[in-house]
């Protein structure tokens, strides 16, 4: 096979040894996944889930305790230098060389990777245009806004034309506008064929960008699939909310309908005793909505509101871990 996966992680473990009074920390406990070339892959999980450690192991900056990692077919432990030629990382902390200008940050990165002069100059120009940082070419990185620094780091990462681009929580600390711009930028890169692996604890980000994602907690993968399949994996697969004024309770009859997996009454703030707010977890199969409506009609109720929603990744996460994403 000429095309090996962009990234293979097999049974990765990492235990940070005990240090003084601090006990040993099992940050990653047997993680496996692989990412195909051209894929946009996400690691979603709360802070402390082991995402950054996993990324550190992939990028050769953290020594794995066990397991194997191949970047474009190259073992990162056995051949770290070769692996580094094939990957690039945009770290969580802004680590731009503060003594160089933006342009030099890019050209020196090119030098480190042995790019010939003409090529690194041309590539720096092209990336600065693409990432809209040309006007800052002669500025020092620390004078730039967070969003700008982020773009310089992405340009820097792309200088040596890596097979895999890894981003560690790239939008943490960015304002909403900068975050949106970064999303568009990443989508653009992905369309151009760059393999992207991203860690995040933002549901919306994972949902919007990633083709597949692994939900990670306590150093393990809880589930791994496309965002749509993850949402479909919830019991029922859809959420039906309805509000009605009714002379008799609707809940018992609705709960007994075929296709309703779970049901609950929601609090109603109006204090109107005849008003019923219900949430049904349903298999949105054939005729379900008709059956629900006929129950409502035959009870002589007036329907105020009805909505059928797809569940969000947040619901998936809560379902898997029994808790909210802790910030």
């Amino acid at each position, binding site marked *: 096979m000429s095309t090996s996966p962009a990234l293979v992680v097999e049974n990765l473990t990492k235990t940070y040894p005990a240090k003084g009074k601090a006990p040993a920390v099992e940050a990653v406990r047997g993680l496996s996944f692989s990412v195909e070339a051209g894929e946009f892959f996400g690691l979603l999980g709360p802070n402390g889930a082991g995402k950054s450690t996993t990324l550190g192991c992939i990028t050769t900056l953290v020594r794995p305790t066990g397991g194997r990692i191949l970047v474009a077919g190259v073992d990162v432990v056995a051949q770290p230098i070769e692996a580094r030629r094939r990957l690039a990382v945009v770290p969580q902390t802004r680590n*731009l060389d503060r003594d160089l200008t933006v342009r030099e940050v890019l050209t020196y990165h090119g030098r480190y990777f042995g790019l010939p002069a003409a090529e690194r100059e041309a590539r720096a120009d092209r990336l600065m245009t693409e990432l809209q940082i040309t006007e800052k070419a002669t500025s020092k990185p620390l004078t730039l806004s967070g969003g700008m620094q982020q773009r310089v780091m992405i340009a820097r990462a792309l200088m040596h034309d890596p097979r895999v681009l890894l981003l560690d929580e790239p939008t943490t600390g960015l304002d909403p506008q900068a975050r949106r711009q970064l999303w568009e930028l990443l989508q653009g890169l992905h369309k151009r064929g760059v393999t992207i692996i991203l860690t995040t604890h933002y549901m919306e980000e994972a949902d919007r960008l990633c083709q597949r994602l692994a939900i990670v907690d306590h150093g393990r993968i809880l589930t791994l699939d496309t965002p749509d399949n993850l949402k479909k994996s919830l019991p029922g697969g859809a959420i039906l909310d309805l509000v009605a004024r009714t002379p008799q309770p609707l809940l018992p009859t609705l709960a007994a309908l075929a296709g309703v997996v779970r049901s609950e009454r929601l609090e109603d703030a109006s204090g109107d005793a005849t008003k019923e707010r219900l949430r049904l977890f349903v298999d949105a199969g054939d005729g379900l909505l008709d059956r629900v409506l006929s129950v409502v009609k035959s009870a002589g109720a007036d329907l105020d509101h009805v909505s059928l929603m797809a569940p969000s990744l947040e619901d998936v996460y809560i379902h898997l871990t029994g808790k909210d994403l802790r910030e």
Partner: protein
Amino acid sequence: MTAFLALLRRDIVVASRNALMLLTASLTQPVLVVLVFGNILPRLHLVSDEFRAVMVPGLMSITMLMAGVQGVLMPLSTDLGGSREVDERLLAPISVLGVSIQKVVAGAIHAGTAGLIALPAMMLLMHKVTGVEVHPRWALLLPGVVLSGLLSASFGLTLGTQVQPRFAGLLFAVVLGPLMLFGCAYYPWMGLAVLGPVKYVFLLNPLVFMSEAMRMAVTPDVPHMPTPLLVGGLVGFTVLFVVLGTRSFARRTIL
């Protein structure tokens, strides 16, 4: 090797942009010491001519020690600090050992430059005073400067990777200060015979060998320690600190 040279180039370019600041930091102290002890006090007949001849190579070695240690220690604190700028280097296609050796070489260039600029500066300041016999012997001076630079920079790497940046002030006060006072910078090691066997305790101080090397190269008339001991000490301490420094650099950077 490409990455090694590119990193070195980056360090030299950045250092040359800050040359004025770096040289001021390294040279102010020795130049002022020379001005007082080599020019003013002799005119007041408070110190002897011999002292001035002894002091010149000593101050060169102190200048190089400070420049070498600071040249590695200061960048290291931003490198290993919160923003982890070092990761950019570690992600370059070069081994971790290569990155740390490159830091030592860059620091040694810094130290050597400072030492070689300090020498004429000091000679100039003492110019009007008679009785100073300073004759640089370049064939001895240049290798001495190179080894002293490597020793200082690798010492800086060892300190910088084993001492937290917040203790840097303490480091200068309780480590570098005493090293300078007991580093045979202001007196020749051969003269310590008056102390009996205690003179051998001084050999635990790496600066002693740097001072004696400069003494041999710059003031031929002042007796210096036996050459094999001198070379052995310089090389030995350099190897020791390169090993210690690169090891703890690897420990600090790759988790």
